[in-house]
Structure formats: structure tokens, C-alpha cells
């Protein structure tokens, strides 16, 4: 039996796009696990000295609301995939909702950063500020990249978008949504 006939008899159990995304997300999980582990060790070593620079208070409550937006966008992303085959219009609206809520999260975070910077907390202020900006910034960059990918699907692919492409972006976005509460809990408290 040659390779062509094997390919004809066996259909792939998972699309290449989705499998590649899952492997990529596994790598990303390790990247964040490394960052968070380093953060935990540095923080534990600092003991009671682990406090923000004077006059600076981290926006815990405001970020909690923002976390709500991110989680809501994750739910909408799942609905986008569920509705894709049967309810195209609802799926498209849910996808737009995901993008908008994700963008709100990123913009809100950016605004919080500007406030912190205006209070004098820069990346060079100390270990506290450096680890804060590194962790939150790494997450923010991932969120921005996912939003750009979603915009590419909506604006460029449009109706040519396949279900496996949507599933791939869902896996990536759910990773971004899922890792955020862990980062929030560790960094803001």
C-alpha cells in the first residue's frame, strides 16, 4: 500500500493547525511557569521587604473588574466555536464580543500601567517593579498577539475561516484567559 492510499483510508484525528497550536500552548505554559517560579523564589527570598515603592498601591479592585472582562471574553470565544456550524450570525457576533472584551482588557491594563509609571514605579525602581512589569507585560503581549490573530480571522479570512482555525485561536485565547487569574493572584496579593 503506497502513501497515497494510506492517506485516503486514514483521516487525521486532529487538524495540523490545532495540534500545532496545542504544542505551542504547552511551550507557553512552560514559559509562564518558569517566570512565575522565578517570581515565587525571588519574592520568598525578599520576605517582608516585598512591597511596592512608596506612594504606590497596586490597582487590585480595578484589575479584578478587568479580570471579569477577560473571563467573559473567554466564555464568548467558546460560544463562537460552539455556534460556528449551526448559528453563523450568532457565532460572528460572539467572536466580535471576544475581540472587544479582550481589547478592553489590554487597554485597561495599559491605563493602569500609565498611572503606576506616573507615580514613579518604573521597571528600574526595584525588583518588585521589575518582576511586576515583566510578568504583566509578558501576559499583555500574548493577549495583544491573540487579538491581532482574531482580527486577522475576522477581517482577512472572513467567511473562508475554518472551524479548526477558530478552535486553534480558542485554545490560545483560553490559555491567556486561564493563566491570568494565577498571575493576578500571585502578583497583586
Amino acid at each position, binding site marked *: 500500500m503506497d502513501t497515497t492510499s494510506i492517506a485516503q483510508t486514514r483521516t487525521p484525528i*486532529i487538524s495540523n493547525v490545532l495540534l500545532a497550536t496545542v504544542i505551542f500552548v504547552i511551550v507557553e505554559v*512552560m514559559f509562564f511557569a518558569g517566570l512565575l*517560579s522565578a517570581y515565587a523564589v525571588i519574592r*520568598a*527570598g525578599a520576605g517582608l521587604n516585598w512591597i511596592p515603592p512608596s506612594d504606590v498601591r497596586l490597582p487590585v479592585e480595578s484589575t479584578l473588574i478587568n479580570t471579569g472582562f477577560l473571563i467573559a471574553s473567554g466564555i464568548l470565544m467558546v460560544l463562537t466555536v460552539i455556534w460556528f456550524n449551526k448559528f453563523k450570525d450568532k457565532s460572528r457576533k460572539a467572536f466580535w464580543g471576544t475581540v472587544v472584551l479582550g481589547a478592553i482588557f489590554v487597554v485597561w491594563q495599559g491605563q493602569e500601567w500609565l498611572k503606576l509609571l506616573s507615580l514613579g514605579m518604573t521597571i528600574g525602581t526595584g525588583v518588585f517593579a521589575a518582576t511586576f512589569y515583566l510578568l504583566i507585560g509578558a501576559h499583555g503581549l500574548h493577549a495583544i498577539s491573540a487579538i491581532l490573530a482574531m482580527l486577522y480571522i475576522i477581517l482577512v479570512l472572513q467567511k473562508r475561516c475554518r472551524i479548526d482555525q477558530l478552535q486553534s485561536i480558542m485554545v490560545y485565547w483560553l490559555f491567556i484567559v486561564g493563566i491570568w487569574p494565577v498571575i493576578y493572584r500571585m502578583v497583586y496579593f
Partner: protein
Amino acid sequence: MKNISIIWGLLALIIANDAWSCAVCGVALEASRLAFIYSTAILSLIPLAMIGGLIYYLYYLDKLNQKKSEPSDL
């Protein structure tokens, strides 16, 4: 010869702290040492769990596909 290797191995474990051969050996805080141990454990287990989970999921999907493609007895 084998016993000598084991003794050397055990000695190496004992002197690791004195040699400051880990990231937190120079820090006197117990919390720091614990954070290092926990994070090492987590970093070791997460990739195994994720890769294992992925392989199991692919195996599960394959089994499901095979069941679907089997001809029915009726």
C-alpha cells in the same frame, strides 16, 4: 566500587547546601527554600502532565474514530 559511588553520591547531597549549589542556598529564609522546592516540583511535573495529557487525548480521539468507522453488526 559501586558502594564508593553511592557514598560519593550521598556526600554530594549533604554538601550541596554548604557549596551553595542551588539558587536559594545563600538565603537563610525557610520560605525561600520551600518556594524553590515547590517550583522545582511544579516545573518538573507540568510538562510531563501536559505531554501525557495530549498523547492520551490523541489516543482517545483515535479510538473514537475507529469505533465510528467500524461497520455495524445489524
